[in-house]
Structures are given as structure tokens and as C-alpha cells.
């Protein structure tokens, strides 16, 4: 850089060329002049930093790996997750998103364009967590390497002036004429042993000199905990990523007696992970044997009467080549088959209906899944009979589990139990549109192209069928509809999240690491022994020690006192028993009132 452009020689360049023989101070000025002239010709008064692409990258890296950048990104991640709870999310409820877009066409389209319906897989959300990830890696790895080196290195050298340390004490050992005083070398060796027993790692220094010392350090696990905490946060990120890359989630509605095989063809809806391969589906099947819903029958409190208390699904799980296994499925108690969890997320009634068409043939027979809309299971029903002839038939209406006709003549459900199930239906005929192959919402009957047969406002009135009156003849000889039975169904969420276990382990590790970094204190102690005189001017061995904590450590003084006690006991008892005076004098001849 300092070489400059030979066609434009400047004083700086020439000086730089000379600087090999000049003194170091001269050469640094020469370099400064050279670089400034190279960077800003004609703007000599402005010192532009000439970083270059490499320097720029290094600067960006330093900024990114700063701890406060990581904290900021973490905060940003939390803020960025907020729209996920404001707008419906495709990952949870794609139908709700479609509804939202249909209801707000202009706004919805824009929200969709900035991925506000896919917050957690959006470019901007990913950018934040990838940056956070890089920031954490860039921060933690060098820290770990540094700590590794620090651990392998010996505790740092003993400072010359121990009294400058935050905690400083001294003891005079021996006394009077110094006769009973232990030798400084022995004192230091004993101190090292005591400190090691207290969990310090020690290094004895300057043995054989007049003032040998021991350097000790403990609490190396604090930083380990810190690093583990950060790595575990990374583990959480990776686990979540693995889950969303390789996991899947699917829904299936099962009527009593029906089976579900874990094959894509058998799902009602299926959300694959970003990198999911449907060939990976673990084959097993689940049959719903029985479903039981318990409702509150306590009549003392009318407000909670009829509230659901418990849902239990008796299922049979069959894995290939294994015996069928009966299992019980409850809300929040999923059944786990090789890591694939089946959750009970919904239930309802499926009335069994038979439709005979205008030709007198049975065109449909079977359970029809209804969607409960309130606490008394007033359920909406849609039935499409595309094989009815001469005309296709469609039905929409309600299932009332316990139908009671109100004073206004309108039947409604008064209880979630099946006391008096009734179907109130409208009927239509015409082209259902299924034969065109265009997928249709199974829970919606598009009546635009259809002709009404029965309806609330039509001449013939709605169809009302129940156990006492199960058959209804459709007008115009279009056929009959028959109410045969009511079965129950369950809605299952089948979820495979390979990252779940890793996330759990990571959380445990993060918590452990956090506790370690909070409750372990990193401290250094230096002990030095030398021959000296006590407060009465008598020769003795002066034991001096100082403590230093890493960061704030309110318990450092306590530790200093504890060491004082240890040292006092050590040499207090080590004195010759026949010399009580010496024994006394070793006890805190002058302990450290002079610590700052």
C-alpha cells in the first residue's frame, strides 16, 4: 500500500522507501504520510480510513461477533416473532390464511408478499436467526479456545504488591525470636496443599528464594458453564432447524372403526418439512376402536353443566410385523410410535346417512364427518353425493345431538350428549363440480350451480330427520335420505419432529450452563511467605495473601476470611506443643486491617 503509484511520486513514498534504515518512529510517520497521500490525494486535511475489502470484512466480523450484537439480534428475533401471533400462519392454519386473504384482498396480498403469513420461514426471520447463529459461533468459539489455553496455562504470576488486591491479609507465623517459625518454603508448600484441597489449581513459584509464593485459581468451570450455555443456545437453533427441515405434520380424521395408515395417501392434509421426503414415512397404522367424551353432569352448577371433562380414544396401533398394540389416546397424552406422535386434537359426531337416488339405487352410505361449532356440539354437515342419478345430490345443514324445539319453533341443541340426535338439512341437486377434477373443500357445498330441493325458505321446508322419523323423501322424486346412526370421530395430528429431543437436551444444557456461570465464582489467590518481623519487632515468617475475583464477587471477603481460618489452624496446630507462647503468637499476630 505504501509503495504508491510510481507515476505520481510523493514525499511520503520517498520517505517510505528510506524508512528501512530510519528509526522506528520515523518509519511510522513515513507510513502514515504515505497511506494518507495514497488514500486521499488532494484532500490532505481529511484522514480517510483505508480499510480495503479485507479490513472491511474483518470490521464487519468484529461487529457481528460482539456480545451486544448477539443480544440485539436475540431481541430482534423476539420482536420479529410478534407478527406470527398477529396474523394467521400457514404452518398452523392454512385455511385461516386463505380466509384472511379472501376477506382483505389488497392488504392480504401485500402481507403475503412480505411473508407475514409464513413468519417463521420468512427470509427476514431466517436472516435474523442465521445472523444470531453466526454471531454466537463467532463469539463462543474464540472464547472457548481462549479458555482452553487459560486452563492449560499455569495460574498467573504472583503480583509484586499483594496489598493492592481487593482482598489482602497477612499473618505472622512463629514469633518472639522466630525460633518456632516455619520456613517460608514449607509454608508455601503447605499453603499450596490447602488451596488445592479447596479446589484451587496451584503453581508454586520462586521456591528456594527468600520470598517463595503460590499462585492459585479456581472457578474455571464458570467460563465452561458460560460457553456451554451459548453452545446450548446454538443447539436449540440447530434442533429447531432440523425439526423444520426433516419433520412433518399431518392431519387425519378417523371415525370409530376406521383405520389410518401412515402413508401420504391416507392423510387429509399434510405439511412436510422443508427437506422432507415422503418416502421416509414410517409405516404403521392406527385404528380408532372407541371414543368416549365425558361431560360434566354435576347439576349443582348450571354454568359448568355439560362442559367437557375428559376425552379418551381407545386405539389399536399396528406396526408392520408386530402384534397389534392397544393404546389409550388422550388430550395432551399423545401416542408415540417410533418418534412419530399422534395427538388427539379434536372430536365430533359423524352421523351415518344413506342416500337413495332417483333411480332407487343407494348412492351413498356411511358416516359423514360434521364440524362442531359450539359447546353443545351443534355441528355443521356437508354431504356430496356425486354418484346419485339422474342428478347429483348435495346436502348441507346441522346435526343437533340433543335437539329440542324452542318456543319459536326452531330446533336447537341443548346438550353435547347424544340424547335426541336430529339432522336439519337443506338439499340440492345439479352438477356438484367434482367430475371436473378441481379440488373442493369437503366442508363447503357451493350451491351456486345447484337447484334447491329442501330449504328453510323453500316450499317443501327443511329436512328434519331423527331416530323416530329417520327417512325423508326428497321432492320431485330425486330420492330419499335416511338417518341410520351416529358415530364419533377424532381429529388426529400426526407429528414427527426429529429436533425435539435435541431441543430438550439443549434446554437442559443451557440451564445447567447458566446455573454454573451464575453460581461458580472465578477467583485467584496468591500467597507469599517471607521472613519478617511482627508488630512487636520480633522475627517471624510473614504469610501474605491476596485475592482477586473475576467480575463482581460479593463473597470474596468471605473467602478471604475462610482462608485466614484455614491458615491459622494449619500453623496454629503445627507449632511445637511445648511452647504455648509461640502457639498464641501465631494466632493473627496482625491480620489484615490494612486491606483496602
Amino acid at each position: 500500500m505504501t509503495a504508491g503509484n510510481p507515476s505520481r511520486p510523493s514525499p511520503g513514498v520517498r520517505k517510505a522507501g528510506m524508512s528501512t534504515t530510519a528509526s522506528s518512529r520515523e518509519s511510522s510517520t513515513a507510513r502514515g504520510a504515505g497511506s494518507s497521500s495514497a488514500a486521499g490525494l488532494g484532500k490532505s486535511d481529511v484522514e480517510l480510513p483505508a480499510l480495503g475489502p479485507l479490513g472491511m470484512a474483518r470490521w464487519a466480523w468484529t461487529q457481528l461477533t460482539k456480545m451486544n450484537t448477539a443480544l440485539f439480534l436475540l431481541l430482534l428475533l423476539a420482536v420479529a416473532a410478534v407478527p406470527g401471533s398477529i396474523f394467521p400462519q400457514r404452518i398452523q392454519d392454512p385455511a385461516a390464511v386463505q380466509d384472511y386473504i379472501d376477506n382483505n384482498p389488497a392488504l392480504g396480498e401485500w402481507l403475503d408478499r412480505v411473508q407475514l403469513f409464513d413468519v417463521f420461514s420468512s427470509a427476514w426471520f431466517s436472516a435474523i436467526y442465521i445472523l444470531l447463529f453466526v454471531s454466537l459461533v463467532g463469539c463462543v468459539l474464540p472464547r472457548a479456545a481462549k479458555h482452553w489455553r487459560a486452563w492449560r496455562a499455569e495460574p498467573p504470576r504472583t503480583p509484586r504488591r499483594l496489598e493492592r488486591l481487593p482482598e489482602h491479609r497477612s499473618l505472622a507465623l512463629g514469633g518472639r525470636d522466630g525460633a518456632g517459625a516455619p520456613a517460608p518454603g514449607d509454608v508455601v508448600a503447605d499453603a499450596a496443599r490447602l488451596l488445592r484441597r479447596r479446589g484451587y489449581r496451584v503453581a508454586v513459584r520462586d521456591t528456594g528464594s527468600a520470598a517463595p509464593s503460590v499462585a492459585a485459581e479456581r472457578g474455571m468451570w464458570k467460563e465452561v458453564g458460560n460457553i456451554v450455555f451459548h453452545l446450548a443456545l446454538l443447539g436449540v437453533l440447530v434442533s429447531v432447524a432440523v425439526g423444520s427441515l426433516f419433520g412433518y405434520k399431518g392431519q387425519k380424521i378417523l371415525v370409530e372403526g376406521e383405520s389410518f395408515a401412515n402413508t401420504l395417501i391416507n392423510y387429509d392434509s399434510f405439511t412436510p418439512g422443508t427437506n422432507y421426503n415422503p418416502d421416509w414415512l414410517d409405516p404403521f397404522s392406527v385404528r380408532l376402536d372407541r371414543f368416549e367424551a365425558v361431560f360434566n353432569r354435576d347439576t349443582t352448577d348450571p354454568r359448568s353443566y355439560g362442559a367437557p371433562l375428559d376425552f379418551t380414544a381407545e386405539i389399536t396401533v399396528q406396526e408392520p410385523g408386530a402384534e397389534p398394540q392397544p393404546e389409550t389416546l388422550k388430550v395432551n397424552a399423545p401416542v408415540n410410535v417410533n418418534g412419530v406422535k399422534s395427538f388427539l386434537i379434536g372430536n365430533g359426531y359423524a352421523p351415518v346417512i344413506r342416500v337413495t337416488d332417483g333411480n332407487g339405487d343407494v348412492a351413498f352410505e356411511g358416516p359423514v364427518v360434521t364440524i362442531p361449532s359450539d359447546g353443545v356440539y351443534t355441528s355443521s354437515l356437508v354431504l356430496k353425493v356425486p354418484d346419485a342419478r339422474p342428478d347429483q345430490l348435495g346436502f348441507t345443514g346441522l346435526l343437533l345431538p340433543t335437539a329440542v324445539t324452542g318456543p319459536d319453533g326452531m330446533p336447537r341443541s341443548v346438550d353435547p350428549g347424544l340424547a335426541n340426535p336430529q339432522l336439519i338439512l337443506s338439499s340440492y341437486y345439479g352438477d356438484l363440480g367434482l367430475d371436473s377434477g378441481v379440488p373442493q373443500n369437503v366442508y363447503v357445498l357451493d350451491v351456486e350451480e345447484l337447484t334447491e330441493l329442501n330449504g328453510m325458505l323453500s316450499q317443501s321446508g327443511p329436512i328434519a330427520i331423527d331416530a323416530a322419523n329417520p327417512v325423508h323423501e326428497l321432492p320431485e322424486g330425486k330420492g330419499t335420505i335416511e338417518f341410520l346412526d351416529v358415530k364419533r370421530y377424532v381429529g388426529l395430528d400426526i407429528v414427527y419432529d426429529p429436533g425435539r429431543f435435541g431441543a430438550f437436551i439443549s434446554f437442559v444444557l443451557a440451564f445447567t450452563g447458566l446455573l454454573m456461570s451464575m453460581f461458580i465464582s472465578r477467583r485467584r489467590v496468591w500467597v507469599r511467605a517471607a521472613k519478617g518481623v511482627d508488630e512487636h519487632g520480633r522475627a517471624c515468617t510473614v504469610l501474605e495473601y491476596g485475592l482477586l475475583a473475576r467480575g463482581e464477587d460479593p463473597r470474596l471477603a468471605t473467602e478471604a476470611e475462610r482462608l485466614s481460618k484455614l491458615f491459622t489452624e494449619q500453623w496454629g496446630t503445627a507449632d511445637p506443643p511445648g511452647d504455648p507462647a509461640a502457639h498464641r503468637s501465631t494466632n493473627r499476630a496482625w491480620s489484615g486491617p490494612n486491606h483496602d
Partner: protein
Amino acid sequence: MISHPSPASRPSRRRVLSLAGLGVLGLALAGCTEEDSLAQQANSGDQKGYIAGDGTVSEYPADQRGEPVQFTGTLFDGTTLSAEALRGSPALLNFWYAGCAPCRVEAPDLRELAERFDGQAAFYGVNLRDERATAEAFERTFEIPYPSFEDKDGGVLMALSAYVPPQAVPTTLVLDAQGRVAARILGIADRSVLETLLEDTVAEAA
């Protein structure tokens, strides 16, 4: 589609992201995903109640086919039939149910092909959801000449999933004379494609 206003820009962004993710996570992933049909269906929220296929055809050359399939099922007329009974000539298995819109689209083609290959290849349906009367109404509508397995319990499906899993409604499997899966079509079977597949398998058996 309203839900995907920028189909052109979307995959590229996604690819860039997955590349970044790859570099950072260091995960060895086989190929970055485009928005595939499965994810698109999941995001559409159409509540159609089944997984549709895009007509993907997988053909397995004779030397790359798996083991002969094993299954036992019951036809709607009550006959129990096992895979062994299908050996000796090519067979076609079509997974369907009456309310599935694409199944209704391909039904006329299947009927014609069943008639064309009468005596050369056996056709069977595997009905995944319907009870007998509903299934028979469908067969009446489309004059389906071949029988179907009643597979609400998923027995035939589970057994076949071990070989070449059906991954959409409808799925069509072509078995060769030894009972091995020779081809799979996910979604509506294109008539001429299916015809060619059947001709090849029949020719092979001859």
C-alpha cells in the same frame, strides 16, 4: 393463485436462504428444495381432504424392481384375494374413493383401458374410504368393470407401502407378471402414459 403472488421470485429467495442455511448449519442436505406440490397443497388451505398428486410417473426397469408384493385383502363382494393370485400376468392397482375429484376424472380412462387389456392384465381398485354402497354407486356411474378391495382398515395399503408407497389420491401401481411394482403414477393417470406402461409390462410378460 392469490396465495402465491410471486411464483417467480419465491423459489429463488428460498434457494438463497437454504444455501445460506446450508453454509451456516453445515448440514449435508441433498438438494435444496423448491416449493414442491406437497408444500403448496399444505399452504393452500383448501380443505379438500386428500393429498393430490401431480401425475408423477416412476417407472422401474425390470432389473431394478423390488421384491414381489405381498398383501391380502377383501373385495367388496366378500372374496378374499391375495397378491399371489395376481401373479402370472401384469396387474394394475388403482387407489381411489368416490368423493375424490381426480379419481372421477381418470375413471373413464381406466374403464377403457381395463376393457382394452381384458385378459392381458388384471385391474383392481383399492378403495380407501368408502363403504360398499358408496363404492358400488361410483362403479355404477363410471361402469367400472373390475372389482375393488375394501380397504378402510388400510391393510392392503400398509402392505404395499413397504414396496412403493402410494403418496397421493389417486395412485396407480402397475405390477409385472411376477408381482413386482413396475410403475407408479401419483395423481391422475394420463391415459396414453398408462397405456404405454401397460403395453410394456404386457410385452415383457409375453
